[in-house]
Structures are given as C-alpha cells and as structure tokens.
C-alpha cells in the first residue's frame, strides 16, 4: 500500500483573512495631511516696548466685529488687499515719501555681493474680539501671499526659481531672500473696538 502524504493545509481562506484585515485598515485610515498657515507668535513681553516706527512705514489693517476691513484709514476689500500690500512692501528707491523708507543691505548671491534696498515697511494687523475667524484667516492668507509673491519675484530674479523651490534646493540662498523680504507682519495686542461682542 502506498504511503499517503499528509494533506496540505488549504490556503484558500488566507485571502479572506487578509481581506478582513485589509478592510479594517481601510476603514480606520485617515489620509488627510494636516496643512495650514504657519505663523510665529512674538515672545511674551512684560511691558509693550515703545519702538517708534514712522507713520509712513506702517500699513495698518484693521478688522472690526462686523468683519469689515479698514486699510490705512479707508474701507478696504479682501480682493485688493494682496496687491496693495505688495505695492507697499516692494522697495521704492530712490526715496518716495508715499512709500516706506528703504535700508541699504548687501545680498550674498552665489559668493558675489549685490547691493539691495530693503523696504522698512511693516504691516500692522489688528482685529476685534468679535471678528470672525474666517475673515481673520483670509486676511492672514492675503498678507502671507503678498510676502510670498515678493519673495518669488526676487528669487526668480536672482536664482531663476520660485522661493519654495529655492528653499528646498539651497537653504542659505533662501535665507538671503528672506533677509531682503522679511515677513513684516505684526499683530497688535488685541483690542476691543467693534462694540458688541
């Protein structure tokens, strides 16, 4: 009589088991990547410092509790905010009293020194406690967009690529661009000027 081999264990149900696990992980997976607007808060200070900034160097953006925007004392709109801020922050040389002062600095581009006139302009943003978060983010977005576009322009001029690519390719070079176009957005200490909360 021939010796019988031990029968193989059926692997047919293996697929079912794997499917079960697969479905479990499919359901529990959250693929969303967290993203958002990055900001740096100013370090805590005991008393507000009295840094005097000339009026022509400040661009004020106020948002009241009715979500209306006041730009340099006039009613502004989110649509024109980005281009207005860009115009303000773009260095104007020779000196133009309508725009912020400039400061002469040197940029170190690929080992060569380039003279550059950096704008001293600062965008000052203030909001009310009753302002809605949505508008606040939209204004923040436009301000960040203005700075990013100015950096892009400069990065393209000197390095031939947008700032984001430059940041990945050459961090030192990106620092030069950051030096020339700082993130000049300051948030005033919160106030209450919109009335009803």
């Amino acid at each position: 009589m021939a010796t019988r081999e031990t029968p193989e264990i059926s692997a047919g149900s293996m697929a079912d088991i794997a499917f079960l696990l697969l479905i479990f992980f499919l359901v529990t997976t959250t693929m969303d990547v967290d993203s958002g607007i990055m900001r740096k808060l100013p370090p805590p200070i005991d008393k507000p410092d009295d840094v005097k900034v000339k009026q022509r160097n400040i661009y004020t953006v106020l948002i009241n509790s009715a979500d209306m925007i006041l730009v340099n004392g006039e009613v502004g709109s989110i649509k024109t905010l980005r281009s207005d801020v860009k115009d303000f922050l773009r260095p104007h040389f020779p000196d133009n009293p309508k725009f912020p002062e400039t400061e002469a600095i040197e940029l170190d581009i690929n080992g060569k020194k380039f003279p550059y006139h950096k704008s001293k302009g600062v965008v000052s943003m203030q909001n009310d406690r009753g302002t809605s978060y949505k508008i606040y983010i939209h204004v923040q977005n436009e301000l960040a967009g203005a700075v990013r576009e100015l950096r892009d322009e400069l990065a393209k001029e000197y390095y031939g690529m947008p700032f984001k690519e430059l940041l990945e390719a050459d961090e030192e070079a990106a620092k030069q661009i950051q030096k020339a176009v700082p993130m000049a957005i300051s948030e005033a200490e919160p106030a209450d000027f919109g009335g009803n909360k």
Partner: protein
Amino acid sequence: MSKFKKEGGKKLPAISTASLPDIIFMLLFFFMVTTVMREVELKVTVKAPDASEIQKLEDKSLVSPIYIGKPTKALQKKWGDEDRIQLNDAFAEVSEIRGYVEEKITGIAEYKRKKHIVSLKVDADAKMGIVTDVKQELRQANALKINYSTRKGFNADKN
C-alpha cells in the same frame, strides 16, 4: 505522438488563486503602514476656513492640536452653543493650555523640541476673542510656532 499532447475534451483549468493572498497582503501592509488612528474624539465641530498660502505639517508627532468650535449637537444641551476649547479628549479652559503644551513638549525627544508646533484647529465661524485668548496663553507658555489649520482653495477674487 507528442508526449505533451493534452488529452482532448478537458475543461480549461481554473485560474490559480494561490497568489491572491499575496496581493491582498501587499495592500494590507500598505494600509497598515500609512494608517494613523484618529487620536481624539472630536467634541466640537470644526470646519476649517479656506486659504491658499498653506504649508504641510510633516511630522505628526511634533504637532499638538487645539480644537476650538461649538460643541457638537449632542453635547450642546449640556455645554451650550458658545465656542469652546478642546484639549485631548475633553473641554478645557484657556488656563489649562499651558499645562497641556508643557505636557506635550516633554513627550518629544529633546533635540526635536524646537520644532514643536501647535496646530490651531478652529471653526470658521468662531470669534477671534477666544482665539486671541488662546494665542496669548501660548505666548506665555513659550509655544511660539503655530499653524492655523485650513483647507485648500481660497481665492480672494472670487469672494
């Protein structure tokens, strides 16, 4: 005749399913590796506002989320419909943020602590008052890197 000639009249052999488990396992491992389990149960409704100048948060272990929004429908009876802060799994007061941030920072390896980011997940309809309070508290806690969580797709021209 040829040794290999099939005996006629037989049915087509069934396609082997022996490699099916392997394929499924491959998919399984992919999802196992990419899965991030939801760490908290949301007690507030957060519908993030939209923006376009956004950056991705790379390492989730360095991010401490703070949720702000109205309590969910089921919880509104007990907690009202004012904007509230949620830390970990519970509602919290502004004063608890400092402890929360410190606790999160101590959980991070020392050389990475500088990269710690607080992600503010705030509902679009929330008021800035509570957000400002949170921001002031974060300054006191020296957690200065923050990220306003947003969705993609804002265009000022279309607003």
